[in-house]
């Protein structure tokens, strides 16, 4: 109980493993009837009515066309004859290992895709573009059920801590932090939205949001969320968003990838 209060209010100087244990314990206490793993389904784990509609959507989900587009893109050879399989193993089933801390920076899967393209003399894809979303959708799909396994080596601790700090810091005109909505008042309604747990947040991206009527990547939601609290929306793959993604992914270590997903 004391630990969760500390969590809600600020910064616990503990290692990533301890952070994750405390994170999980928080949600276990808050939702004793929800198996931790179910939070990968966000609000659908918390609301029966929404869950029923989501299950209907899963009969033939709208993101299927995007998976097919991503499949075509993934298998299209580069001009030099090579392709993405030269950079990613298992047919692209690698999402569970990202983000990674490599050569002093946080490399998300999107960044790795562009690094692969650069290595093969191909132009980079826009991080907020359709093709990147399609590729990410395909790679999430082939990575489904793989268990998230992201480490925080010594040299990555500073970046990890910055991501954690972002999560707990208030921002914007509404002066909300991520933790306020997704921990303090998690499960409650914000107008007609049911606030979902941060545990399992990263597992289901990219996401087809009915609101967007298309698939969008995780950083699109970060930017949207920041805008909604009256804070500055950063560019996709801005270092602050990469660090936030890193922190959130570490918190979800042990959970399976279940992207792409459909959401409200």
């Amino acid at each position: 109980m004391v630990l969760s209060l500390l969590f809600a209010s600020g910064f616990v100087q503990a290692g990533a493993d301890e952070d994750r244990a405390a994170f999980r314990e928080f949600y276990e206490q808050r939702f004793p009837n929800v198996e931790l793993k179910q939070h990968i389904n966000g609000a659908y784990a918390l609301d029966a009515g929404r869950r029923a509609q989501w299950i209907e959507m899963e009969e033939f989900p709208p993101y299927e066309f995007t998976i097919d587009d991503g499949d075509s893109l993934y298998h299209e050879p580069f001009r030099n004859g090579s392709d993405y399989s030269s950079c990613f193993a298992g047919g692209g089933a690698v999402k569970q290992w990202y983000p990674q801390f490599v050569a002093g920076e946080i490399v998300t899967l999107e960044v790795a895709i562009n690094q692969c393209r650069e290595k093969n003399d191909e132009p980079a894809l826009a991080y907020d573009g359709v093709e990147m979303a399609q590729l990410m959708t395909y790679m999430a799909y082939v990575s489904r059920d793989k268990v998230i396994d992201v480490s925080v080596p010594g040299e990555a601790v500073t970046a990890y801590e910055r991501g954690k700090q972002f999560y707990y810091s208030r921002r914007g005109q509404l002066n909300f932090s991520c933790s306020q909505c997704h921990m303090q008042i998690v499960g409650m309604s914000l107008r007609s939205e049911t606030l979902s747990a941060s545990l399992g947040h990263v597992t289901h991206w990219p996401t087809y949001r009915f609101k967007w009527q298309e698939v969008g990547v995780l950083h699109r939601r970060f930017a949207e969320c920041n805008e909604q609290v009256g804070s500055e929306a950063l560019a996709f793959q801005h270092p602050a968003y990469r660090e936030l993604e890193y922190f959130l992914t570490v918190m979800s270590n042990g959970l399976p990838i279940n992207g792409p997903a459909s959401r409200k």
Partner: protein
Amino acid sequence: MAKVKIRGKVREGVASIKSLMPHPMETGSRRDAQGNMIPAHYIETVICECNGEQVIRAQWGPSVSKDPYFAFKVSGAASGDVIKITWVDNKGETSSGELTLK
């Protein structure tokens, strides 16, 4: 545009078919970022055939959702039957998809 996707299972002579058709299904009452009306563009007719025989026809208005989902059931079906779904929209554009039931 991508083709109509069809999934189906036959059990005791009844084929349960599910389909997803990519289409904007614009109602004609939305505006774009510049404030111009986006013209109506939606599927008007869907024809489903089993081995060339029409089994169900749907007529839609623009209030059917974008990338329409359509599920239906056909009796007297068997493994090897070919299900074909064809749509025609208000611009006269058309596309179709086929599935051979296993």
